[in-house]
Every structure is written in structure tokens, then in C-alpha cells.
């Protein structure tokens, strides 16, 4: 089971060098004549500023993009990595990479799609690196620290029993998602945790939109089977 989006989907998803597909393909693109989204317009403005050498103003504008996307990005990265610190680093790296390569951004793709692609490639690289590391390192025991996802609980789950139940539920869900096929998992995460439409996921992964829907459906069916209908 391959975790790598680049190999799993047979497309070049080089984070910082992500180039839009040829004009013949309309997957994941905004409809002809539709105005670019606010974020895309902002990214174009930042690119122009960087090209002019006005880095300070470009950074100021970019902080707006960071604020708009960081929560969703953190959620996606966390679901991929299941480690808060590593997810934090992955998000930071993705934003820095985006800014460093903003000159190569083309408005044919919405900014969100471009950014998410870079983020996911970074997460996949980290997963691979971790898998290599885990071959040699014996994992330490449960720390139970504040970053431990199993310790995290919503504000409504105040009682210890509720916390324990939530922890078990999340562990079960994480294990079930981990058992998904690489493509299914990626598509599922992007759709359900990243709040992307199948069309956007199609643009990110290079898969046909109908293929994305099939993967989503299979992922959901498998999860229902593994979790017994309830997460």
C-alpha cells in the first residue's frame, strides 16, 4: 500500500514545483469566465509584490492567507501524521514553501488546491521518513501528554468517563482510517477533513473526478464495515 500521492496516483505532485495540468484538462479548474476566488486573487497580488521585490508587503499580505488556511491545514496534517508537533511543522513548512515558490504559482488553479497539494506532499514525505525511522527505533511508551491525540477531548467532554470514551473512539477511528488503501485514505481525508469537493480533490491528486467519487464511496463503506456503522 503506497502512501505517496505521487506514486499512488502516478502523477507529478512536486510540492513546490506543482504546475497546472495542460489546458486540455479541465479538472479542478474554475469554470471559464468565473472570477478567481479571494484567496487566489490575494496569491496573485503576493506574487506580483515578490516579483517587484517588495518583500515586506508581500509578507504582510501572506499572513492573511496563513490565517485563513492554517486551521484547515493543521487539521489535514494532523489526520495524516497523528502527531501534533509534526503536523505543526508540516504546516509551517508548507506555508514557507508556498511563499518561497509563489512566483511559480499560476492562477489556473485555485490557491487552496495548490497549497493543499504542497501540504499533502510534505505530510507524505514525513510519513515515509517516519516509517523508515520506525524500522530502527523502538517506540517509547504512551506519554499521555497534552499533544497525545488520545488525551485530547472536546470542551463538552468534561467528565473522565467521556474523555476515556472519546479517546477510545478516536483511536478506533484512526486505526480504521489507517487500514484504508493509500488512495482511499488520501481522497477521504481531503474530502472529509479538508472540506474539499471531489472536483478539488481531483485537481489535487490528478485523478478523474468520478474516480475520486468511487474511492470516497469505497473508503466510506470500508470504514462503516470496520467501525460497525458508528465511528
Amino acid at each position, binding site marked *: 500500500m503506497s502512501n505517496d500521492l505521487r506514486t499512488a496516483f502516478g502523477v507529478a505532485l512536486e510540492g513546490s514545483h506543482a504546475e497546472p495540468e495542460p489546458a486540455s484538462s479541465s479538472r479542478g479548474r474554475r469554470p471559464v469566465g468565473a472570477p478567481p476566488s479571494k484567496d487566489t486573487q490575494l496569491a496573485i497580488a503576493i506574487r506580483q509584490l515578490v516579483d517587484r521585490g517588495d518583500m515586506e508587503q508581500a509578507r504582510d499580505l501572506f499572513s492573511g492567507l496563513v490565517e485563513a488556511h492554517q486551521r484547515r491545514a493543521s487539521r489535514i496534517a494532523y*489526520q495524516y501524521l497523528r502527531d501534533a508537533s509534526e503536523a*505543526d511543522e508540516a504546516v*509551517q513548512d508548507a506555508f514557507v514553501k508556498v511563499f518561497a515558490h509563489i512566483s511559480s504559482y499560476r492562477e489556473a488553479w485555485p490557491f487552496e488546491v495548490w497549497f493543499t497539494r504542497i501540504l499533502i506532499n510534505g505530510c507524505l514525505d514525513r510519513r515515509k521518513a517516519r516509517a523508515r525511522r520506525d524500522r530502527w527505533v523502538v517506540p517509547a511508551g504512551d506519554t499521555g501528554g497534552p499533544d497525545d491525540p488520545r488525551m485530547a477531548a*472536546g470542551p463538552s467532554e468534561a467528565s473522565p468517563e467521556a474523555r476515556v470514551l472519546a479517546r477510545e473512539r478516536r483511536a478506533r*477511528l484512526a486505526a480504521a482510517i489507517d487500514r484504508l488503501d493509500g488512495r482511499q485514505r488520501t481522497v477521504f481525508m481531503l474530502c*472529509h*477533513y479538508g472540506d474539499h*469537493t471531489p472536483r478539488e480533490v481531483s485537481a489535487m491528486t490528478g485523478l478523474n473526478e468520478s474516480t475520486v467519487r468511487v474511492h470516497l464511496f469505497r473508503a*466510506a463503506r470500508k*470504514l462503516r464495515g470496520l467501525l460497525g456503522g458508528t465511528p
Partner: protein
Amino acid sequence: MKNRGHHLEEERLFDSYLAVRGGQILDPPVAEHLTDCDACGERYAELTQFMESLNAEARVEADAIFTPERLRVQRQQITRKLEHLGHPARVITFPGRAARPYVGSSASRPGRRWIAAAAAAGLFVGVGTGFFFDWERAPGRRTGGVMARQTVLTAPAGRVAGEIEFARPDPSDEIRAFLTELELAGEKPRIQVLSAVDALTPHVREINLR
């Protein structure tokens, strides 16, 4: 619309769920079927509930970890990294204060370099002058010493020329001569600092007296 025994297929239900989630309007025939067929309506509700609960669970979990404070710190770190983007790497100075005098002692400050050169020159001139005056003051002693040494090596009379055989002096005599020479040389020590050591050292004549 594909029906299987007058019920919607799972895939169709899932597509409907995705359409609604994406803000699209549900296909009118599907919407009509879901309203009319209780079983399909129930299946659709179950599917929606399952998917939404997955989503909600993930949101709650991530939001509990990525609090507003944590996100603020994350933004700060991103800003800091962006500020250093494109800047060449800089050399960080060694933090210890104690290292400073050593680092720039003679190499970096020309004034100190001059002082060091003057001190070396003064030392050289002083040693040279001291040597010269001592040499002038006690020439006889040195020559006397050399002459005394020359007496040790004597050729016996009556030997044929070419068959010169150097006398093998008695080792004790040789040692004594050497020590005497040392003593003569050290009678007036050239280095004042060593005079104290010299005073403590027993002389050959004292040993002989014993």
C-alpha cells in the same frame, strides 16, 4: 436513476450525500424517492449521520489540539521563517566572553602587535649585550679553562710521528676537570635569577674536602 428493487443503490445515496455536502441541490427524482421510500430515507439518514459524525469527531479532536493560542504561535513561527527566507547564512559568534581576549589578542589589534614586537626586540638586545660584556670581562677564565682541558690530552714522548696515540685519561680525572670547568664558569653567574640555586649547589672543592 438506477433502482434495484425500487430502492436506491448505496453509491447513488453516497453521491447524493456528497452533492448536499457540497452545497448542491439534490437530484429531484432522488429527493422524491427519499421522501416516498422510508427504507431509503432511513439508509440515507444513517449514511449522513455516520459521515457527519466522522467529520465532527475529527474537527473536535483537531480543534482541541490546535487551539487559538497554538495557531497564533504557529503564525509567528511562519512569519519568522519568512523573514529569514533568502537571507544568506550568518556566522554566530561564540557566546563566551572569556574567549574574546584570546580571539583578538595580537592578530586583530595593531597596537598590541607593536608592543609584542618591541618586547621581543628589547629581550634580544638585552641578551646580546649581556653576552658581549661578559665575554669582554672574563676572557682569561675561559681561555684558562680551555688550556686546562688541553692538558688532559697529551702525546707521550718518544713516539714516532704518525703513530700518535692519544692518552686515555682516567675517567675520574675527566669528570673532575669537567666539573671544575663548570664551577669556574659558574663562579660569577650571568643570570641573577639562578644565583640562589647556585648557592645551594655544592661545589667540587667542597666535595673534595669531604
